[in-house]
């Protein structure tokens, strides 16, 4: 009996031990020691007010697994991208996450490099971004490796809609991949040109600096052409070349047909002097420009015919261009551009007639000019408003100021 009692006590006590252990450690995984994955309850849809307590992991009344980010494997790009996709993040989110991580890495490296340079006293000049040429080269390589990594992970360097829009405005209807290739080439060569500007002592560009820039620009052109198909090269010329870009601005109001634009482009591309950062404009270059410009105008006249050439002359006249900018700035009707321009032509013609009138005494001529200036001012005020006349006078208005000065006004 006593033996039975002892046995029962032993068994019962063993049971206590087992049950106690089960209570305390009953959620553990056998062996291994890995942390259990707790499948959280699904969230309720957002109700407009967050009502969240992010710190406690409760959002909209539901508890959120606080280790979700950690589970995605952010230390390894490939794992992260795979897990993000598997977890249901749309591709645009995956791209945004990768871009953000790369950007953060880049910024941290940049900040470390700047910190290593030590503080610069406020009285000491520092050129540009505060980095040395070697540090900029390192960051350039880092940027290139990030782009390569993004291509490997995502298939391409991601582009936002806003970026795509800006690029297409400049480059025309090229595919994303081509635009990115060009953009990368331009960024790389742009940094090299930036180095030259930064290192130019006293901010002065010397002939050897311009030669280096000319060389870099030539290499950039070669690399861009190599990145394009023949059809894309043609498009690139029409959208990006300096001549085409300048023409689109200068011909505002002319509304050329495609054929007219191509014809004018061909003449201007041949006769326009070299532009760009390598160009140095001295008196000789200015004189040469004037000669070539006159030749270009004659050739354009022959191509367009007299009527269209008259339109071309009008829109390329500085007075017309100034009228366009002032009317646009003042939010006045578009037709006021032509009205301003025509008033200027009329006034200049009448002023010329007064100047040429030998029968007028000096004082009479001055009085007539003053009256003409007053009439111009009044009529211009109707077209541009009184405030607009001040703007017009201060931003150019050469014909008005000339007539006013001939009339004795200061």
């Amino acid at each position, binding site marked *: 009996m006593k033996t039975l009692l002892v046995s029962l006590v032993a068994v019962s006590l063993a049971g206590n031990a087992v049950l106690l252990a089960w209570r305390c450690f009953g959620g553990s995984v056998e062996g291994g020691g*890995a942390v259990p994955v*707790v499948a959280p309850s699904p*969230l309720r849809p957002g109700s407009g007010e967050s009502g969240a307590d992010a710190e406690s992991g409760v959002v909209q009344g539901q508890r959120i697994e606080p280790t979700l980010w950690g589970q995605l494997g952010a230390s390894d790009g490939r794992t992260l991208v795979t897990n993000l996709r598997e977890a249901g993040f749309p591709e645009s*989110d995956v791209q*945004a996450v990768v871009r953000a991580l790369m950007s953060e890495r880049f910024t941290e490296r940049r900040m470390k490099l700047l910190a290593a340079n030590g503080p610069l006293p406020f009285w000491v000049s520092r050129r540009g971004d505060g980095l040395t040429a070697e540090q900029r080269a390192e960051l350039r390589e880092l940027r290139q490796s990030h782009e390569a990594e993004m291509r490997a992970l995502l298939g391409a360097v991601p582009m936002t809609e806003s970026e795509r829009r800006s690029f297409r405005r400049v480059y025309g209807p090229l595919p994303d991949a081509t635009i990115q290739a060009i953009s990368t080439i331009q960024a790389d060569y742009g940094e090299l040109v930036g180095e030259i500007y930064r290192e130019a002592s006293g901010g002065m560009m010397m002939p050897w600096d311009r030669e280096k820039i000319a060389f870099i620009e030539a290499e950039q052109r070669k690399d861009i052409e190599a990145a394009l198909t023949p059809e894309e090269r043609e498009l690139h010329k029409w959208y990006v070349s300096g001549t085409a870009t300048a023409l689109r601005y200068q011909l505002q109001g002319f509304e050329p047909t495609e054929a007219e*634009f191509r014809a004018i482009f061909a003449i201007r591309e041949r006769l326009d002097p070299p532009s760009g950062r390598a160009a140095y404009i001295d008196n000789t270059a200015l004189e040469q420009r004037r000669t070539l410009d006159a030749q270009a105008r004659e050739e354009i006249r022959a191509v367009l015919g007299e009527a269209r050439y008259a339109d071309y002359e009008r829109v390329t006249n500085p007075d017309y261009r100034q009228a366009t900018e002032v009317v646009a700035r003042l*939010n006045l009707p578009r037709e006021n551009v032509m009205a301003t321009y025509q008033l200027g032509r009329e006034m200049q013609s009448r002023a010329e007639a007064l100047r040429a009138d030998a029968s007028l005494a000096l004082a009479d001529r001055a009085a007539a000019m003053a009256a003409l200036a007053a009439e111009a001012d009044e009529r211009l005020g109707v077209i541009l408003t009184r405030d607009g006349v001040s703007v017009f006078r201060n931003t150019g208005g050469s014909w008005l100021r000339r007539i006013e000065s001939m009339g004795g006004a200061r």
Partner: protein
Amino acid sequence: MKSTLVIVLGASAILNAVLLVGGPRPHRPEVAEASAVVVGAPLRGDGGSEARTAGAADAARASAAARRGEVGQLLESTDLATLRDGLRAAGFPETIVRALVGRRIEEQIEARRLQRLGPTKVEPFWKTYDSFEERRVRSVERALAREQRALSAELLGAGAMAGDVRAYMADRLRFLSPAKVELIRAIEADYSDMISDVRSDGYGPGVSLPEDQEKLRMLQREKEADIAAALTPEEYELYQLHQSSTANTLRGRLRGFDVTEEEFRALYALQKVYDDRFQAGRIGPRTAEEQRARSTADRELKDQFKVVLGESRYAEYERSTSSAYRAAVNIVEHFNLPRENAVSVHALEAEARRRHGELAQSAASTAERASAMQALATEMAGRIDALLGAEGGRVFRTYGGSWFRVLEEQAQRGSASARRP
């Protein structure tokens, strides 16, 4: 003894009953038993590895499914505040929260852009620029950008700095705490947006209205007041010395001068008064009256600089700001010549001007004056070449030494005049 055993047995039995049926049971994961793993954690190894691998794969799939469920619910939320808080609760770093919420804000703005401006077209290459249309589109885009910034600020706080801005600010404002750097950055960003809006309104070749200038002046004053309010007086003074446009412009001008801290502070104080009066960085041309007032103030400022620096240091300062001197410095550096040769070339300019002036005032005949001026130009060319070398001299005369080109042109005109009957 027997009664003790009975008591122990009874207590133990009661304890067993309590442990078995009373209170909440320990939680068991819903995933597959016995082999739940954390993604990334190593699987268990030896003994029954196939079964355990298969079990681990099942567990991983179940984990992924669970995550997909949770993430799906989170991402479906159209309330960005809920998304933001959900991401934070899920342990997403703030950079990623900003990226994901920011992307959705951009989407909303893109949708608004589409409503207001229609789909983006790539115009044919022969379509010319249109100032009127450009203004309309820019106005809408600026309004949308303001909306985007406001929404970002509401949801994400003052806003993360773009990487290069953050690095720049941290570098330039080391004397401030990180919290104050962020505060200053936010103020600067706000005003930069407002100033940029005013400048954009006045874009185009110098077309700005009088009210644009007044708006810029007001914004500049308010910005300085807001920043001053955020900093102690000592911090604000340092901020101005590091960051103000006056300080930046002054540093640029003093590049070749080797200025001391004391000199810089004194020059800065004078330049700031001038810049505040004439609104440095304004847009659009100045009226004739403004130009006259500015010319007078320029002369006064130079005199004040002379007083601060003293005659000798002022001469060094003037030399360092001369473009001809800077060209000469570039040339001696490029051709590895002594630095003092650039100083000597600079001194030639003053000598040439003095001697030219004397010749112009002399009682000599036109022909004699022309001959003397030509001889002066030739002498100066020779002395420049002696200091900078033949090639350096050529570069100097062509690209940097405008005083020499003027001397040469005047000598040539004088010779041409002398030859006329």
